[in-house]
């Protein structure tokens, strides 16, 4: 007490940790993590080898295939999903423009990494969302984690990932997934929780098992909401392209990064527009597809 009275500087200044203590605190943690990554980095990296080889294979496939075949395949997919000639024509024009301005290869790289990230987000995110919807406890644990993932600046979680795995495609994919996966998890959870209770009760009353309820009622009825989540996930993955390029992910992000450092306005703008074009294509196609698949849910509700 006497000590506190004598030294009253805590009134004017925050009673913080001394510099020396802070330094040793940081050094201890950093050291521990560095040791961990030296010890296990290679092992962990090798776990990702199958993913890496798939990524490389897919990227090579898109780049080495003649451009008109890729273009034809993309258009075919777009038309199959949307059944809209107008949309297909728009996609054709924007892809031709991208190619004409010399961004074809970078666009293919970005397309491949976004596709892989989206597929992985869906594959990981939907089961987590289902878990969250079925257990309030799981939801109360996962929700704050999702909040952190969405608000923590990407650079912060890039540091440990890069320390562990070095720079390259895999850390990029991990960073993109961390940033982009929350919407699909959240909206899967929401969609399932919003399923009409009477419809679910009906399934139970007629003797549906847990999995019959999940796959026969909950998931199909949550699908519009889940599709909205997937759509958001794709958009957020695209938004990460530039950040990912900082850790060595090739694609449309790298020219943008170069333009920032060298003040190349036009180069930046063109590549930025290419990203926007990709985003719009993904968005419109996934939305029209979802709309078409859920057509019967709208129906005129006469009464």
């Amino acid at each position, binding site marked *: 007490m006497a000590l506190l009275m004598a030294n009253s500087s805590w009134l004017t200044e925050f009673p913080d940790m001394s510099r020396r203590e802070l330094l040793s605190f940081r050094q201890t943690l950093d050291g521990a993590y560095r040791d961990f990554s030296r010890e296990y980095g290679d092992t962990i990296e090798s776990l990702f080898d199958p993913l890496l080889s798939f990524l490389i294979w897919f990227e090579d496939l898109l780049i080495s295939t003649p451009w008109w075949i890729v273009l034809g395949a993309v258009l075919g997919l777009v038309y199959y999903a949307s059944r809209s000639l107008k949309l297909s024509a728009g996609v054709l024009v924007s892809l031709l423009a991208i190619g004409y301005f010399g961004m074809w290869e970078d666009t293919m790289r970005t397309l491949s990494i976004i596709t892989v990230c989206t597929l992985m987000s869906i594959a990981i995110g939907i089961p987590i969302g289902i878990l969250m919807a079925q257990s309030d406890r799981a939801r109360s644990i996962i929700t704050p984690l999702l909040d952190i993932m969405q608000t923590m600046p990407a650079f912060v979680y890039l540091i440990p990932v890069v320390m562990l795995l070095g720079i390259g495609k895999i850390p990029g994919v991990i960073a993109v997934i961390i940033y982009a996966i929350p919407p699909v998890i959240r909206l899967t959870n929401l969609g399932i929780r919003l399923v009409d209770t009477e419809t679910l*009760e*009906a399934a139970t*009353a*007629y*003797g549906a*098992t847990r999995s019959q309820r999940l796959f026969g009622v909950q998931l199909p*009825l949550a699908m519009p909401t889940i599709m909205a989540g997937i759509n958001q996930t794709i958009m957020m993955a695209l938004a990460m392209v530039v950040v990912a390029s900082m850790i060595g992910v090739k694609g449309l992000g790298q020219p943008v990064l170069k333009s920032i450092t060298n003040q190349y306005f036009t180069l930046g703008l063109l590549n930025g527009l290419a990203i926007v074009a990709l985003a719009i294509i993904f968005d419109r196609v996934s939305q029209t597809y979802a709309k078409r698949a859920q057509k019967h849910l*709208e129906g005129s509700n*006469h009464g």
Partner: protein
Amino acid sequence: MGNTEQDILIKIEGLYQIFGKTPKKVLQKVKDGASKDDVLAQTGHTVGLQDINLDVKRGEIFVIMGLSGSGKSTLIRHFNRLIDPTAGKILVDGEDIMELPQKELTEFRRHKMAMVFQHFGLMPHRSVLDNVGYGLSIKGLKKNEWKPKATSWLDTVGLAGYEDQFPSQLSGGQQQRVGLARALCTDAEILLMDEAFSALDPLIRSEMQDQLIELQETLHKTIIFITHDLDEALRLGDRIAVLKDGKLVQVGTPVDIVLNPVDEYVTAFAKDVNRAKALSVATVMTENTDKVLGTTVREARKSFPENQSYAFVFDHEGYKGILTKKTLASLQDSDSLDGKLLDVSSIAPNQLLEDVIPLSLNTQFDIPVVDKYRQLIGRLEASKLADVLAP
């Protein structure tokens, strides 16, 4: 319809439902008679149902009636354990379904009971036909196995041709017909109907009630029907249970409920009932089989009831008309009664009062009540009719 023990299909004993964090701890308090409000104030638990005991007989329509918040929808969800009770037994065919493990409960739900919901509970992503066959398809039957059955039930409820539509393309009444067909398609012995017709507009509702009555005449299912509408309860129910604040207030036949309500709550309910639509002739008629049997004046003189100014005349074919004492006095013994009788129609005991009011107003005589074997079983007196209709 006997009343023997083996005719009881569902028996509920000492059922309690308490909502809250630790319902088991509060149970004793409720059993000791603490009121709903006290329990809520002292423990934060809501008493949903208390001490429910009831028997449902095989083949009857058992209506559970109560206002919103009375616990009726909670109660019906106990029959197939969509909700588990805090305490109590639910016996179906003598078997306590509370004891069933999950797997057997699923089997029980698949085979014993079907349910119809207030807001239909249809699967919006399945076609009408797939909805009707839902119960069978989750049992593992292939579509080509259940399709003929589903189609025929859809036909029975009057929706042939709608197989490939989606529920959202149908009107409310049509959707509930799909709900009914889905329930009937499983061949379950017991039908749970949770305010099944409450969301429909009055005209459609009355049509659906007719259809249910008609179906029941051939199907003889055991139906638990929930409603907040006493008119509906009286129309459909063989017996009615009135639920108030989670307690059973009265269980009885429709006439019991209307004419002998046990307390103010039931009285208030019964007061607003359109009795003309709810009660049948049998409940109001005076039992009396005095009549004139024969077609000649001589026979009439012999059998004319004493102290009466007119009588109902029957021959071996049935009811003929009304003969007044005055007319009889003016006739010769050898005369025929042909052309001397007053033409007043007879009525059946199961007719609704509504249907016989015009008849009663058009004549100064009582109206003969004749059963399906053409026998006189009683008479409807205008004064009694008036008493019942305007208490």
